[in-house]
């Protein structure tokens, strides 16, 4: 479905304002970025596109980003995962050590922080739970 060879990233956030922010940040980037507000749409996009990395908000309307990541098994288990959290209570080290996510970023994230983390995630192999 995508003609170019750019790695595909998928952003999930139920806040349209934040999705628009990510769209503005990455409108010209080395990645092909997809955006959605629900995990249902996310699953459809995962079926349609060769997504390499997902960046998902922790609090979603229909649950948490962590629950969504836990549900990604089988053919999606190798997809890299970054959890975006607006709360300092989400413990990044524990989640990454347990292999549930590849990284946790605390919002608001700068474009530079996002780029660094995306680069880092894409350059390593996923350590699965």
């Amino acid at each position, binding site marked *: 479905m995508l003609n170019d060879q750019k790695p595909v990233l998928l952003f999930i956030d139920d806040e349209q*304002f934040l999705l628009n922010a990510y769209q503005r940040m990455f409108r010209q980037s080395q990645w092909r970025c997809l955006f959605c507000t629900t995990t249902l749409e996310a699953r459809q996009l995962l079926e349609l596109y060769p997504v390499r990395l997902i960046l998902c908000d922790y609090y979603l309307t229909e649950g948490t980003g962590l629950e969504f990541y836990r549900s990604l098994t089988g053919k999606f288990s190798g997809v890299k995962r970054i959890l975006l959290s607006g709360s300092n209570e989400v413990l990044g080290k524990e989640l990454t050590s347990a292999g549930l996510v590849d990284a946790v970023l605390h919002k*608001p994230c*700068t474009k530079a922080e996002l780029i660094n983390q995306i680069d880092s995630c894409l350059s390593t192999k996923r350590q699965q739970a």
Partner: protein
Amino acid sequence: MNNAKILIPLSKLPLLNIEAVSLIYGESDPELILETLQQFQTEAQGYVSQIALIWHTGAAEDVVRYVHSLKTMTAMVGAEKMSRVCRMLERQLRAKDVVEARRTYGLFEKVWLDTLQQLDLHLLTAQGDAADAQ
């Protein structure tokens, strides 16, 4: 990025720090900043109105959710004082500290009005500059 200013007193935090927008978005294009602030103004006002509407209904979980979202949105545009108040209110609501949350809600309303005023001022100036440039 949100941990660095935790120790600064609330009174010293700016209502609107436009430089934060440039830092977060990684560019200082005036059009991008204007577009971002306009969208913020509309969406954030919607959240504040929703919070006001449900504040007295006892639907604390909904209030927490809106306050949590507003906390991040305000931080994304450098509305640092409002973001800090949202952080305080969210923490108190999650801890079910009703007395403190009520106190903070008064502050929340005041700081939001001050932030809006500052935002309006900035948008008027920026729109005027854009018109002059054309």
